[in-house]
C-alpha cells in the first residue's frame, strides 16, 4: 500500500498494465517524453520505450481513429485526450466507429480502446478547460462511460477499463487530481493523504466496472452523484445535519440500477447532483430511473443540483459550480417537502 494522489494512481495503473500485458500501448499528446501535462504518464516512456508510450500529433480525431486501428490489430490502446473539452474532433470516431464495430460486424471486429480524459472545472479553466461532457457519451450505445472520484477507484477502474474488451470513456475530474474538494472554494486545498481512498495498493487489483458504491450509509435521503461532487455531497450532508446515503455511480453506463433502487426505496428521498449542465444531462436519466424504480417509496419530488445551462464561465466559476451551499439548499428542499 502507498499513499497516492489520483495522478499517481492513474500512472500506477498504466505501469501495472504496461508491465503485465505487452499488448497495452498508451498514446496521446505530450504523454511520452514529457509525461503528460498532468503527469499521469510520467516516467513511463523511459521505462517502456517509445513504441509503448507514444507521443501523438495534436489531432484528437486522429488519436481516436488510430487507436481503433491499433486495437483491431490486437493491441490494447489507452488514449489520452488532454482535456475533455478537446475530445470532439474524435467524437465521430467514437460514435460511428469505436462504439459500433462489434455490433455492425456481429462480433468479428472490436477494438478495446480506453480513452482517458481530464474533465470538470474548479481550476480556473474557463469554458475550454472545464467541461463535463459525460452525458454526451452515455447516450451512445456501445461505449462504457466511467467517472472516478478518488485514487483507489481511479487505479482499479482504469485497470478494469484497459482489460475490458469494450471501449471505455474514462473521465478524470482534474479538480480532485491532487486532493478531494468539498465544494468550498474559500477553504485551503487538502491532499489525498488524509483520505482513506488515498491508500492504494502498489500492484494489480481491479474495481469492477458497472458497480456503484455506497460511499456513506444514511437514512434521511439518498444523494446520487459521481466525480468531484461526491466529496461536495459528503460535506453538504454534514453541514445540513442529515443522515444522507451517498452513492458514487462510478460507471455511468451501464448503470448499476440495483444499488440506486435499494437505497432510494429505503430512504424515500433523492437528490441527484452533478457538475455538468442540467438539460438532457446525465442526471435526467438518474431521475427517470429512480422515478420508475422507486415511485411508490418516494416521499418528496426528486431534485437535481447541477451546473447551469451555460458554457463554463471563467470569471464566475464558483457561481456556476454546484458548490456546497447549493447542495445544502437542495437537501433542505427535499427534506422540507411533505
Amino acid at each position: 500500500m502507498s499513499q497516492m494522489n489520483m495522478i499517481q494512481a492513474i500512472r500506477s495503473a498504466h505501469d501495472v498494465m504496461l508491465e503485465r500485458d505487452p499488448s497495452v500501448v498508451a498514446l496521446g499528446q505530450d504523454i511520452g517524453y514529457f509525461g503528460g501535462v498532468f503527469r499521469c504518464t510520467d516516467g513511463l516512456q523511459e521505462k517502456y520505450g517509445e513504441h509503448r508510450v507514444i507521443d501523438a500529433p495534436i489531432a484528437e480525431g486522429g488519436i481516436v481513429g488510430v487507436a481503433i486501428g491499433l486495437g483491431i490489430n490486437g493491441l490494447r490502446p489507452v488514449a489520452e485526450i488532454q482535456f475533455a473539452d478537446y475530445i470532439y474532433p474524435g467524437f465521430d470516431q467514437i460514435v460511428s466507429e469505436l462504439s459500433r464495430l462489434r455490433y455492425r460486424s456481429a462480433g468479428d471486429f472490436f477494438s478495446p480502446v480506453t480513452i482517458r480524459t481530464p474533465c470538470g472545472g474548479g481550476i480556473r479553466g474557463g469554458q475550454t478547460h472545464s467541461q463535463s461532457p459525460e452525458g454526451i457519451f452515455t447516450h451512445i450505445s456501445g461505449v462504457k462511460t466511467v467517472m472516478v472520484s478518488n485514487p483507489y477507484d481511479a487505479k482499479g477502474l482504469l485497470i478494469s477499463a484497459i482489460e475490458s474488451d469494450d471501449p471505455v470513456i474514462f473521465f478524470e475530474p482534474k479538480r480532485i487530481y491532487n486532493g478531494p474538494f468539498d465544494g468550498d472554494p474559500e477553504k485551503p486545498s487538502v491532499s489525498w493523504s488524509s483520505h482513506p481512498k488515498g491508500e492504494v495498493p502498489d500492484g494489480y487489483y481491479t474495481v469492477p466496472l458497472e458497480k456503484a458504491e455506497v460511499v456513506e450509509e444514511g437514512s434521511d435521503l439518498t444523494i446520487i452523484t459521481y466525480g468531484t461532487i461526491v466529496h461536495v455531497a459528503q460535506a453538504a450532508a454534514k453541514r445540513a445535519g442529515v443522515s444522507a446515503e451517498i452513492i458514487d455511480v462510478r460507471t455511468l453506463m451501464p448503470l448499476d440500477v440495483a444499488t440506486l433502487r435499494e437505497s432510494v426505496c429505503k430512504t424515500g428521498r433523492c437528490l441527484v447532483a452533478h457538475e455538468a449542465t442540467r438539460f438532457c444531462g446525465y442526471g435526467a436519466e438518474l431521475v427517470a430511473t429512480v422515478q420508475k424504480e422507486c415511485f411508490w417509496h418516494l416521499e418528496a419530488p426528486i431534485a437535481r443540483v447541477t451546473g447551469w445551462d451555460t458554457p463554463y464561465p471563467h470569471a464566475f466559476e464558483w457561481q456556476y459550480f454546484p458548490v456546497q451551499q447549493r447542495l445544502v439548499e437542495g437537501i433542505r428542499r427535499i427534506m422540507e417537502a411533505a
Partner: protein
Amino acid sequence: MSNEPYLYIPRPTARPGEAPDFSYLRLSPAGAVDRPPIDARAADIEFLALGLVRVLDEDHVAQGPWAPDLDKETLIRALRLMVLTRAYDDRMQRMQRQGKVTFYMQALGEEAVSIGQGLAFEDGDMMFPAYRNQGLYIMRGTGLVEMMCQCLSNSRDMCKGRQMPIFYQDKAHNLFTISGNLATQYPHAVGWAMGAAIKGERNIAVSWVGDGSTAEADFHYALTFAAVYNAPVILNVTNNQWAISTFQGFAGGERRPFAARGLGLGIPGIRVDGNDLLAVYATAKWAADRARGGHGPTLIELVTYRGGAHSTSDDPSRYRPKDEWESFPLGDPLDRLKQHMIKLGYWSGDEHQALEEEMKATVAEAWKEAVSYGTLTEPPFLDVSLMFEDVFAEMPEHLTLQRNKLAKLRGAGK
C-alpha cells in the same frame, strides 16, 4: 477578370444535355512516367503524383518501366475476377430494382481498382475498403453467397441484419467491416499499420476512399499520422470523378491532383490510370514493397470513372451527361484488359463470351442458394433478439430487460 476578391464556385465541364468534356484530365502517354526505386524520397519523385502512370497504350500493348511481369495465369485470373465482379453487380442491381434488396452500389467501370491492386497484396495484409471495393471481397475469398446473404439481411447474414446492403466484412480474409461514414477507415488503416510495426510484423495495411471523401478530416489525420510514424500503409484515392452529384472539383481536385495531397508531408504520391489493370497492379506492388521494406506510406490516386449511379438511390442523368462514360479517355478497364490479352494471344472473343456466360450462371446459382436462406420479407428470418447482442462483449442488464420486453410484446418465444 477584375482584380477583386470573388467567390469561385467549381463547375463541371459538362452537365446534362451538354457534350462530355474531359479536357481537364491531364494524361501522360503509356510508358512515359519513370519508375523510381522503392526507397526514393518523396521530394525526389513528385513527378509520380503529377503525371499519370500508364502501361497499356492505345493499341493495348504494355509499355515502359511500369509494365509488370504478370504471367498468363494471373492475367486470366484478374480478367475472370473482373467479369465476375461485373456480373455480381449486374445481378444485385437488378435484384434491387425488383425490390429483393433495399439498396445497392455498383463498381461498374472501377473494377480494376480492387482487382488490380488486390493482386499486389498478401493474405496477411489488412484491407480497409470503401463501399465500392466489392472486388476485394470477391477476390480474397468471401463467397458470393455470403455477400448476397449480407445484402438480403437473411438468416445467414454475416452481420446479423445490422448493416444495410454492401457493408460487408470478412475477418478470416483480413477485410475490415465497411462503414457508411466516409473516410473513417483511413486512420484505422494507419493505426493497424502502426500496430504491425510495433509488433515487428511485415504485414501492411491498405485503405481506400473516394475523391469526395478526401475533404474529410479523417483523410488528413491519416496522412499526418502515416507520415509522422512512417506507417507501413497504402492510402488510395479512387478518383471516379463524381461524388454523387458533385464533380471532383468540389473536393479540391482542380488545382492539384489528389495524389499530391501527401507531398507536403513527405508522403510520395502516385497518380495512376485506374482503368489500366497492369498500371494499377504495378503501382500497388511498388507501394507495397516500399511499405514492407520500411520506407513508409504511399498515397495512390486511381483515376477512373464511375460508370453507374452513385447508388440505387440516385439518377445520374440528373447531374451529368448520359453518355459521359463513353467519352472517358481511359475507357473501360475490363475491355482494356481483355484487348491486351487478346493481343498477347492469351485470350479470344469466344473465350470471353463463354466467360461472361459462365460468370452469369455462377452468380445466378449463388443467388438461388442465397435466397433459400431467406430475404428481408421471406423466411427464414433472423431472430429479432439478435438486435440486442454484440452492443457490448456481454449483454448488460438494461439490454436484457429491453430484449425481454420486446419478446413479451411480440408474444412468448419470439
